[in-house]
Structure formats: C-alpha cells, structure tokens
C-alpha cells in the first residue's frame, strides 16, 4: 500500500480551507445587487388561506415584491412531487398529492410557506413578511400518527383516511404457518421517535436570472444538485435544464435533509426573474426545525416466533409510518423498500410478513434521515431479538449466533440477496474488545456503588450502494441510481475528476483522489475532484444512502480503465511496441521484458501534442467518461455493543463503553471511515437518549430550537472503540460496501438494549431521558420487591 493509496490514513485535502475559514458555503456567496427573501409561514397546522393582503407590506421601505401561490400558479410553476410510486395491497396506486411551493388553498402544517416577501435587505423583507395580513380560516388538525386514519379531519381530498398507501411485503400464509408451530412467541410494540436532522449549516438559496441569456444560476445547499435541477425543470417548470445551472458549493452537513427540493429554492429562482434581481434566502434555525424534512416517526407492533432451541421460525411486523403533511421526494420508499426489505436483519428467517401504512398528519413532511428506513428496521429486529433471547433464557450473543445467516449468497424472504458477510466474526471481535466475559464482574462492581449496569448488542445490516437502476425501477423509483464520472488528464499530467457524487462532509476530495493517484501512479496533489456544479459535471445522482464509495468511486474506476486503455495505445506508439506488450504500473508504461519505459505525464503530453500516433486511429486527447450502474445493493453489517451505567436515584444514563466492529468491505481511508462511524453513533445515541421532535395537539412544534430540542454535545458521549472486519463486496470493482449510515442504524437498539438490560424492564421509549429512566427504574424496583 502506498502512503496515499487505497487503505491509507491520508489527511484530508479539503481541511485547509475549512480550518482557516476559507470554506465557501451557500450563505457565503454574494451577488452584486442581490435582494433578500423572507417567507411568511402558516402559524396554524391546518387552515384555509382566504386571502393575503400585501398592501401594508408593499408600502414599507425596501420591499420589492410580494408573491403567493396564485402567482406561482399563474406562471404554471408545479408542485413538489413524490419520486417513488408505491402500490397498496389491493393494487391501487398511492395517494400522493403534490406540495405547492407557496400555499394554494390550504396550509397543512405550521411552517407551510404562504407568501414570500422580497426586499433590499433581509431586515426589510422580514418586516414586510410580518406586515402581511393573512386571513385564515382555522381547521381542526390531526397530529398523532395512530389517530389520523380514523380522524374526521381530512388533509387532502384525494387521500381518503389520510392514507398514502397500505402496503405489504412477504408471504403472509407461510408466516402464519410458522407462528402456528412456534414454541415461543415474543411480542413487542415500539415507537421510533421523530427526529430533526439538524445539519449545522442551515439551508440556503441564492438565485440569479440573466436576462441576456435567459438562464438561471442557483446556489443551493444540496446533496445532489443535478437531481435538484431535474426536478425543478421536469416537474416544477421553473426553467428548462439547459437554462438552469445549479451549484452546491461547500455543504455543511446534510444527513438526508438536503437531498430534497424544497419550496424556498424554487421560489427564489422563479422570483429572481420576477424582480430582476438576484434573490437570497437563508434559513434561521427555527425555520430549519419547521421546514427541513424530519426523520423516522414509526409505530410498530412486531412478533417473533421461535422453536424450542430459540431458532427463529417467522417474523410478523405491522408499522404505521408518518409522512407528515405531504409526501416529500423519497418519503414513500423509506418505510417500504428501505425498511421492510431489511427486516431479516443478519438472520436466517424462513418467513416474514410486513404491513406498512403510510399516513398524513398536520406536521412537517418526513423523509430519509441518516439510514432512512434501515435504522427503523434495525431497531425493530434488534430489540425483538434481544427480548426473545431474554425471554427464552438464552445469552443474547448465543441467540444471535444461532440464527445468523452463514452461507452466501443468501436470499431473504423480503427481496434482498445478501452477497457476502461474516456476522459471527464481527460479533466475536466486538465481544473480545468489550470484554464481554468480564461484564458480570463489572455489573457487580457497579451494584456495589448503587449503580445499575447493562450491556446491549445491535447486529445491524443495511442495504447501501443505492442502487441497481432496473431493480429500483421495478420497485417504483422514478429515477435510475447509477453514478457518472469523467477523468480529464491534462497535457502536463495532472488530473481533474468530475463526479456526480457530492460531498457534504464525507471527504471525497481526499478519498476519490486516493483512488486516482494509486491507479495512475501520480501524486495525490496532482488530482483535483470537481463536484457540485451542473455546468461542470454532466450529470450525477448525488450523495446519500452510503452510495458514493460503492457507486461513485466505481464510476471513477470505470473511467480510469478507459483512460488507461487509451494511454496504453499511445504508449505503444511512443515505445514502438505492440499494444499487448505494454504494462502500466506505478505511473510508468513499459514494454514487457525490456527496459523501455515512459512516464504517465509524458504519455499525457503526447496525447495532446498528437505528433507521434496516427490520429486516424487514435483521437488526440486523454479524457474519458463512464456511467456505472451497480449490479446489486451492497450489504454493510456489523456489531455494536453499548455498555451503560445508570444511577437509579437520578435516572441519568452514562455510556461507559462502546465497541463497534463493522464490515464495510474494502476501506479506502480508515481515518475517514472511523469518523463516519463516530458521527453516526452520535446521532443514534442522540435518538436513543436525547432527541425528540414533540408536537402539541394543535400542531405547534414544541421543540423548534436548541433550547428545546436536545442535541448531543461532547459531554453526552464517550470515546468509541471502532474496528472493522472485512469481507470484500463482490458486486463492485473496488469491493466497497459503504459506511456513512452504519452508526446511526446500529446505535439506538444497542443503547436501549443496554438500558433495558440494566433495568430488567423492557418498557422504555426513546428518548430514554433521565426522567423516563428514573420512572422505569422505580417500576422495576417495585416489581422486584413484589
């Protein structure tokens, strides 16, 4: 392994600009003469908007324009669409009403944008927004996902029972038969709490219309600028693709929340032509809380059937998933194909049947948030497996090992074909690292100090490398999920790589350059990664679903193959040898069995000078592109073990030890992979212990600031012990599986399994706040006394 090649702990190339304050985020960009947009948002969870009187606002200094849904409709600007078709059990298509970018008729959640005010300064726009007289007719709202299907409140006329779909997966009859012969059945009801993604950079947009060329430029906080452009062109009719340039410069975290197209960037783009000025909008934090797509929010009943030895026979799951007020771009696939398809976990389960109802409520739309469906699946599987082991008196590690998938490929009853893995290897390694054998001694030591100690496993699996285009197409996706790359070798031998992936913290400028530097035998500083601009990169599907390594880098590898093939042809002419005799290694082309050789920069210069090869056979230049479509999902999996100590007097849970052993396939940069795992665990621990999006019954979000929504801070978290075991992924050329979401997927079940182990009591909901844990500890103590 070279110092900068695949597998090396290369320090990040992008860091210098970030540590010196020279990063370039959307809000850092300014265009001369820009105006500012502020949105007036519905204060009510459900209300008919009778009229908007803008006369007072328009009279204020600096106000340039006020626009409402009627203005968008007049220009035939469309509504935000749902990008994934799901069919109900009865075969009917889902009910998925579009989300108008400014309210038309009814506002359906607190925060739904009613009107926009454009003014010279942000303060003037804010004053204008406050001066708008909006005449609302307040309507009853429905907030609770368990009540909405039987509620008298109807959000959308074309979504009866406030239901998007009633979907199923798996073999119902086979599952019923498995339960009929079960020796033991474990039952569990779980809530997966609603979360707010909270990327630290708030969303922002800056749009500029050029009347001379009739084209728009939009700077926006996006994980996938090409998808944003496609949606804004094809569905929203803002501008044709070739007249719309979307630039996502440095992006300050996303975690899914910056995948989607939101009303604000659409309105700013459209309004920049209306007012003839560049228009800028930046969310404040409370605005982010009430407009960024939320995550999770499931209610689930599950049953697991076992034989007398604790071998799983069947699994039955019934879930209601809250979509919020509208179906956001990928929302409909999250509780279906990203959730129920992972309900087999790491286990060989003969029969599974899952039912999922997706419902509308008067709350912020819910969509993919780090892990997207897979954390929800893992929470259900790993909680019920743990409880089943406890109920049957089997050690939870032994119970898991007894049920692991051991032969690959493995076809689950819920679509997926697992291609490679060694689940026992991760589990065994994690048990060693945490000293599982010594746990009982540690528990006794804690007890002597009046503390309750518990240990919890989470053996997660996820489907990443999203995704084979035809496969997702057959499941309802509106797009293909390949990735593109272009490798441009310059005459002097340095290289630009244009990729459709887009880093928002993952370090692509380093990891992608590691691949290119190793393959071409050039210095890593000779490689520039270009991303996030639709005028530079031809097309791309973006970064989410832990896909940029497995799919994005595979596209680069494919383009590099073509570059190497062409360079070899040129080298053959330069070395006056047969093409088949040319070897390329460590940046040098040589003729097999001779000492004749030539360097990569010499070949690239010659490619552009084009004096020494017949241009009738070989085109001048050295630039190749590739589109890579994966042949399967990838299946990262691993074992996380959390050890907690609880003070029963205060209910405070202290995470005293955390071990993560993950199988991500081939690791490009262990330093970056460990960082991804740390960050994922922190978000999972946040869900388990601290974070919760809470609505009151009228639909006001009570947790709409950092005063009320508890973000994990340095003092809430331990040091993590992170290790990997490796089974290379067989389905892509680099053997990569992906690592971005694992921590967030694994962590919640590990924490709750540890807390319930410590308390000896299974009834604890997330977040397990000190108050909730204290209460459960009291109940557990009372039960023990009885």
């Amino acid at each position, binding site marked *: 392994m070279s110092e900068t090649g695949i597998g090396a702990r290369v320090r990040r190339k992008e860091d210098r600009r970030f540590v010196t304050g020279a990063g370039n985020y959307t809000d850092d960009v300014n265009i001369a003469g820009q105006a500012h947009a502020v949105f007036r948002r519905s204060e009510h969870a459900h209300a008919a908007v009778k009229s908007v009187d803008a006369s007072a606002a328009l009279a204020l200094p600096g106000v340039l324009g006020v626009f409402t849904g009627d203005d968008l409709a007049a220009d035939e600007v469309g509504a935000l669409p749902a990008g994934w078709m799901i069919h109900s059990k009865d075969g009917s298509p889902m009910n998925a009403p579009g989300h108008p970018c400014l309210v038309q008729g009814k506002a359906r959640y607190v925060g739904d944008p009613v009107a926009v005010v454009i003014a010279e300064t942000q303060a003037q726009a804010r004053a204008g927004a406050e001066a708008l007289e909006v005449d609302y007719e307040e309507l009853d709202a429905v907030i609770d996902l368990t009540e909405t299907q039987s509620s008298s409140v109807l959000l959308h006329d074309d979504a009866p029972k406030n239901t998007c779909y009633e979907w199923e997966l798996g073999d119902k009859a086979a599952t019923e038969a498995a339960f009929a012969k079960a020796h033991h059945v474990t039952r569990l009801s779980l809530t997966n709490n609603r979360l707010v993604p909270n990327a630290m950079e708030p969303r922002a947009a800056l749009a500029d219309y050029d009347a001379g060329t009739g084209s728009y430029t939009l700077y926006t906080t996006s994980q996938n600028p090409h998808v944003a452009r496609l949606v804004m062109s094809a569905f929203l009719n803002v501008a044709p693709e070739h007249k719309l340039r979307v630039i996502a410069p440095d992006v300050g*975290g996303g975690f899914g929340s910056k995948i989607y197209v939101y009303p604000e960037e659409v309105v700013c783009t459209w309004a920049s032509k209306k007012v003839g000025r560049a228009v800028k909008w930046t969310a404040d934090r409370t605005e982010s809380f009430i407009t960024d797509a939320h995550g999770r929010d499931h209610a689930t009943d599950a049953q697991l059937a076992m034989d007398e030895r604790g071998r799983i026979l069947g699994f039955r799951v019934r879930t209601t998933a809250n979509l919020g007020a509208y179906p956001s771009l990928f929302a409909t696939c999250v509780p279906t194909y990203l959730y129920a398809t992972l309900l087999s976990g790491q286990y060989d389960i003969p029969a599974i049947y899952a039912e999922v109802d997706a419902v509308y409520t008067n709350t912020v739309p819910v969509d993919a948030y780090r892990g997207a469906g897979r954390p929800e699946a893992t929470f259900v599987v790993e909680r019920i497996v743990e409880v089943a082991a406890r109920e049957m008196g089997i050690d939870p590690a032994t119970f898991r090992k007894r049920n692991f998938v051991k032969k690959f490929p493995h076809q689950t009853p819920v679509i997926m074909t697992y291609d490679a893995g060694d689940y026992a290897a991760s589990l065994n390694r994690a048990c060693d690292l945490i000293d599982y054998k010594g746990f009982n001694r540690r528990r006794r030591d804690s007890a002597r100090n009046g503390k309750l100690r518990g240990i919890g496993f989470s053996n997660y699996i996820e489907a990443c490398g999203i995704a084979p285009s035809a496969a997702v197409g057959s499941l309802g996706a509106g797009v293909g999920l390949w990735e593109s790359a272009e490798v441009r070798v310059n005459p002097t031998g340095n290289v630009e790589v244009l990729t459709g992936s887009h880093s928002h913290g993952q370090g692509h400028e380093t990891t992608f350059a590691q691949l290119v530097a190793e393959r071409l035998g050039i210095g890593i500083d000779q490689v520039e990664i270009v991303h996030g601009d639709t005028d530079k990169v031809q097309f791309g599907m973006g970064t989410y679903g832990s896909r940029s390594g497995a799919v994005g880098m595979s596209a680069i590898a494919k383009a590099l193959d073509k570059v190497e093939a062409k360079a070899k042809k040129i080298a053959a002419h330069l070395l006056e040898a047969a093409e088949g005799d040319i070897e390329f290694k460590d940046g040098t082309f040589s003729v097999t069995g001779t000492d004749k050789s030539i360097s990569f920069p010499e070949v690239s210069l010659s490619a552009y000078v084009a004096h020494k090869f017949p241009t009738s056979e070989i085109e001048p230049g050295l630039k190749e592109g590739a589109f890579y479509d994966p042949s399967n999902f990838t299946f990262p999996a691993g074992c996380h073990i959390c050890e907690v100590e609880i003070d029963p007097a205060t209910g405070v849970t202290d995470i005293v030890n955390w071990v993560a052993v993950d199988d991500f396939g081939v690791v490009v940069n262990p330093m970056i992979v460990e960082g991804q795992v740390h960050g994922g665990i922190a978000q999972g621990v946040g869900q388990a212990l601290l974070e919760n999006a809470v609505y009151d019954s009228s639909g006001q979000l009570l947790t709409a*600031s950092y005063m009320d929504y508890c973000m994990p801070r340095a003092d809430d978290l331990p040091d993590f012990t992170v290790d990997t075991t490796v089974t290379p992924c067989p389905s892509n050329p680099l053997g990569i599986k992906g690592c971005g979401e694992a921590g967030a997927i694994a962590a919640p079940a590990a924490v709750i399994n540890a807390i319930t182990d410590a308390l000896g009591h299974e009834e604890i909901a997330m977040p397990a706040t000190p108050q909730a844990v204290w209460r459960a500890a009291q109940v557990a103590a009372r039960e023990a006394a009885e």
Partner: protein
Amino acid sequence: MTTVAMTVNGDSVSADVEPRTLLVQFLRENLLLTGTHVGCDTSQCGACVVHVNGKAVKACTMLAVQCEGAEVTTIEGLADGDALHPMQAAFQEHHGLQCGFCTPGMIMSAVDIVNRHGGAPDEATIRKQLDGNICRCTGYHNIVKAVAAGGAAMDVPAREAAE
C-alpha cells in the same frame, strides 16, 4: 445608522451600521469575513465564536457597537501567514472536522479553552468546556483528540482554571 470602529485580525476597520447589527453580521456582511458562521438563533451552537479582546465570544450574541475599540480575532486571523495555528493543524491531523461548518467556532473555542486552562487539558475538561459548541458530524471523538493535541502544541503554561 451609527459608526463603529474596531480592530479585526490586526486591521483597523470602521463602518456605518444600524445599531441593531450583530457582531457576526458585521463580520460576515460588512467585512465579508465569512469564516465565522451562524448555526442557530438562540446562542446555543457556537458556530459563530470569535475572540474579542482575547476572550471567546459568541458573535451572534453581541452587537457590533459593543465592540467599539475592541480587538477582534476571527478564524481568518488565527494562522500566521501560511503557517497554521497549532490548533488548526491539530484539527486537520486528528480528523476533527467533516463538513467543516462548526469548525471555525470549535477552533476558536478550543484555543480559548487552552488559554484558560493552560497546558494540555484532559478529556473530561475538554468535553465539559465544549458544551457551547455543537457538531453534528464528528460525534466529538476526534474533536476531543484534536483539542488535546492542539493544546499540547500551543505551549501554554499549565494552570488552574481561571474562572
């Protein structure tokens, strides 16, 4: 409008601003020093931390006019020319950042923690003292390592906490 004058990263600056202008707005909008970030509106996240007269301050929670005559250092003023400040170098070396959005505030807070505590603060002290800075990406693990290493490299004499 009122005139405000201060020293920012060693340069004398002055501008006419509305009295309600926050220090962070003055830095970002008037001086175009966009390294100082805004991540919240309740003084909770620390993305905006700068030094005013040598002490860490949340620039979203101070008016520009309150800094009249003050010495302000932002993330852009921390390095010595091309040579990174030891805390900046430590964040890069220990992978203490991912998206980079919290990073300027984290580094400015970290320098202040070391200045106040001296020497190389221990892990528990670092975790406690970082409670005014939120990072959503890193899980803090590597930030804590970076602050410890940066602190050791800063060569500030060990002392009891000054508070």
